[in-house]
């Protein structure tokens, strides 16, 4: 149909295989490869290959979305891991092979969009083409003979087609000029649905737009995580993040200074539905935000309701308990006090945390604690949590002494304690001087117990909630959303608006009657073309007041 289409498009003229191809030069080969790359078959192949290549990334954990899963995979399948890792399967969507496929696909796409845009631009400026000599071979061909004037019948048809949104052009035949003369023929050539191709081009261009937005926009953004305990603040500077992932072109001056204080964290749990006791029904993080030059503002961050502040969005991603523990030396002087976030281990918030007390006591102290918001004894005698809210909180601590390794200059996780080089003095098989087992320390809120070996005392002063926030800045998302909307709009118009040509021809007969002929031509998918042509014919005949003998 049009020269802008790839040669293997269903509407292109078939290539005659008997034609001998000339010898190709260098430029000839370049043209040949370009034509291959931009052919329908290649585009289709690359599309299906892309679908296929996406599968491995769903079968094995990905570094981007599940880094711990990758570590676990390495432990579970030590033989397979290096092979898959070499194939970049753990970062499928940034791997060389996956990138190659989509980049080739997009080059092929651009190679298709550009010539088609040029062609469409010309089509938009041109008039509908001449009426073909033989209409009877075209779709929906209908003919009617009756008493009317050929030229005015065509004028009526033209007005009718214009009303239905057709672009029209009159084509009087060359050899006859005056109406009423036998053999004189008048016709109107009409075309509609230019929006179909426009939509098609918008759709494909918007796909390129999304790719470019993601590639460029993502590089200017950042994301960071921060755990905040009730009563504490977070300040939006690099040093105040627990973890931070900058985009490629991130510059720290884009961090707008703001402060978020977590006033209170509330979790609501189901109490009535017997099938779902303890299931969470709501999380609310009540915060106070401060921006430079602005007043303090109260806000409530919920799971589906992030807070927009300083060009970023702040998301509530996790929460848990942070027991406040105070450690005193034998003289009763406070040597350490802090609210330490404990990581939840199950739905009833049995939580695990680590306390490290390097200074102030005669030995360095490391503690591994389990916190049970509602302590319940299992049959085995071990504790577990029976409900996620603070009904009967118990903190159980194993105590170790020895070198915590904090002075070695090696970064250590605050959530982990390597107990191998340490000596247990309570719990974990610890024994006192007489050889009797020393159990782990157990504390309720407000309770103070002695540390073994006369090291001092330890108190569970309070239990607070913590919330973990994700702070994101992604300047590309407005662009991505805009292109996504264009994709939908383009899809609608590109798929559902029919592009068609319709011709109406009136030929004066020698006996004084006029033969009216109607036919259409689909340009792209157009299942209703035949019906549309017949409808046009019916409306036209009705308007002319022709009597049609059945």
């Amino acid at each position: 149909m049009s020269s802008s289409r790839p040669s293997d498009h269903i509407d292109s003229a078939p290539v005659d295989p008997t034609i001998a191809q000339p010898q190709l030069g260098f430029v000839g080969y370049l043209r040949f490869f370009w034509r291959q790359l931009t052919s329908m078959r290649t585009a289709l192949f690359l599309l299906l290959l892309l679908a296929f290549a996406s599968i491995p990334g769903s079968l094995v954990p990905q570094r981007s979305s599940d880094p711990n899963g990758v570590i676990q995979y390495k432990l579970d399948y030590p033989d397979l891991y290096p092979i898959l890792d070499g194939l970049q399967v753990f970062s499928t969507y940034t791997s060389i092979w996956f990138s190659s496929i989509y980049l080739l696909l997009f080059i092929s796409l651009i190679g298709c969009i550009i010539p088609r845009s040029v062609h469409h631009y010309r089509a938009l400026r041109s008039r509908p083409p001449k009426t073909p000599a033989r209409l009877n071979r075209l779709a929906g061909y209908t003919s009617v003979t009756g008493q009317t004037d050929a030229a005015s019948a065509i004028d009526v048809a033209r007005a009718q087609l214009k009303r239905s949104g057709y672009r029209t052009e009159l084509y009087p035949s060359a050899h006859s000029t005056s109406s009423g003369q036998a053999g004189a023929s008048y016709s109107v050539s009409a075309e509609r649905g230019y929006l179909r191709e426009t939509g098609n081009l918008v759709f494909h261009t918007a796909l390129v737009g999304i790719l470019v937005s993601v590639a460029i926009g993502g590089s200017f953004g950042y994301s960071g995580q921060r755990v905040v305990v009730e009563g504490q603040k977070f300040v939006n500077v690099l040093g105040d993040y627990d973890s931070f992932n900058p985009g490629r072109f991130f510059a720290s001056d884009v961090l707008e200074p703001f402060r978020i204080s977590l006033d209170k964290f509330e979790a609501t749990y189901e109490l009535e539905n017997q099938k779902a006791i303890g299931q969470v029904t709501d999380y609310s993080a009540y915060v106070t935000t401060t921006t430079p030059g602005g007043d303090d503002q109260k806000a409530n961050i919920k799971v589906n309701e992030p807070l927009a502040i300083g060009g970023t969005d702040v998301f509530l991603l996790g929460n848990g308990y942070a027991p406040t523990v105070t450690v005193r030396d034998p003289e009763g002087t406070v040597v350490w006090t802090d609210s330490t976030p404990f990581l939840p281990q199950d739905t009833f918030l049995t939580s695990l945390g680590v306390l490290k007390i390097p200074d102030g006591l005669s030995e360095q102290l490391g503690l591994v604690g389990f916190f049970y918001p509602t302590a319940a004894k299992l049959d085995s005698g071990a504790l577990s949590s029976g409900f996620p809210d603070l009904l009967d909180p118990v903190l159980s601590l194993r105590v170790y002494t020895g070198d915590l390794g904090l002075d070695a200059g090696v970064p250590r996780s605050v959530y982990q304690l390597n107990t191998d080089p340490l000596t247990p003095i309570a719990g974990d098989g610890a024994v006192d001087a007489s050889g009797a087992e020393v159990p782990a320390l157990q504390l309720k809120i407000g309770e103070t117990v002695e540390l073994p070996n006369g090291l001092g005392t330890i108190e569970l002063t309070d239990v607070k909630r913590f919330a973990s926030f994700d702070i994101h800045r992604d300047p590309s998302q407005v662009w991505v959303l805009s292109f996504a909307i264009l994709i939908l709009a383009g899809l609608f118009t590109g798929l559902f608006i029919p592009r068609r040509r319709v011709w109406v021809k009136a030929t004066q007969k020698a006996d004084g009657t006029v033969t009216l002929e109607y036919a259409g031509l689909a340009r792209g998918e157009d299942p209703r073309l035949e019906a549309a042509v017949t409808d046009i014919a019916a409306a036209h005949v009705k308007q002319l007041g022709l009597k049609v003998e059945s």
Partner: protein
Amino acid sequence: MTLETVSLLAVYSAMAIYTLAFIAFTVDLARRSAAQPVEEVAEAAPVGMLAAASGNRASALVDRLATDAPAAAPLKRSRALRLAMGFTVLGWVLHTAGVVLRGFAAGYAPWSNMYGFAITATAIIVGVFLLVQFWQDLRFLGAYIVGFCLVFLGLATVNFYVAVTPQPPALQSAWLVIHVFVAILGTSFFALGGGLSVVQLLQSRREARGGEGMAFLATLPNAERLENLAYRLILIGFVFWTFTLIAGAVWAERAWGRYWGWDTKEVWTFIIWTIFAGYIHARATRGWRGSRSAWLAIIGFGAVMFNFTVVNLFFKGLHAYSGL
């Protein structure tokens, strides 16, 4: 009796009636195999060709003036078929009541776990099947659609059933309603398109053998027409699926802080989108029309089913709401 129990009862009743519908649909297919197809010729020829071939073109025009006749001539009246459709409508009303009651029992759109999703999805698929009949006579897909939904309802009630529980905070969003509902609509159209493509493959094999093969196929539209119908239904499904993808990304941005993260469910939604994008391009590629694109439609629908079953149950990811 609680609303939840009434809902389950309605779903069980719907299953019983669907079973009757399935039997009647199958009887109809069997009858088609036995009876000599009278309308075969009229069936195969599109209206436009009839008009062009007709000696008196004006009469075709007059017909068109009088009525807006559907492109396919109506099938020979079959009591089994009418009975089957009646059962399907009745079953669907009970089925929908079951979904709505479950929604009332829960206090939110009842599709946040596998069971709720399965009963809603099957209700919408049957609903779309019934609605499509006003556009085209696709009742010959009844055994496939009702049988398919029956199997899923069986799996859902026996294996996926969970009691109504409160909505977890992660799902407390209007996007749950929009994103999932549109995804199911898309799935419904893919299901119909997939079914038509299977029939198309059977039909084109029969046509290639000069009419030998399963006899009931003679009463169905020809392969080309089946392909066109499948294409038009899948186009609608594709638009819904594109919307699902975009709505999902918008929601993901609200809930998780990123619009796209290659979560397993996101990956499979993308794979399905790509397969159907390939299907649409195959229609426009020389040498890919016909059976090849039909296979793509079937693979695409297979991926949709895989996404709902295997990915939900066995793959690790953020869309872990199966409730099992």
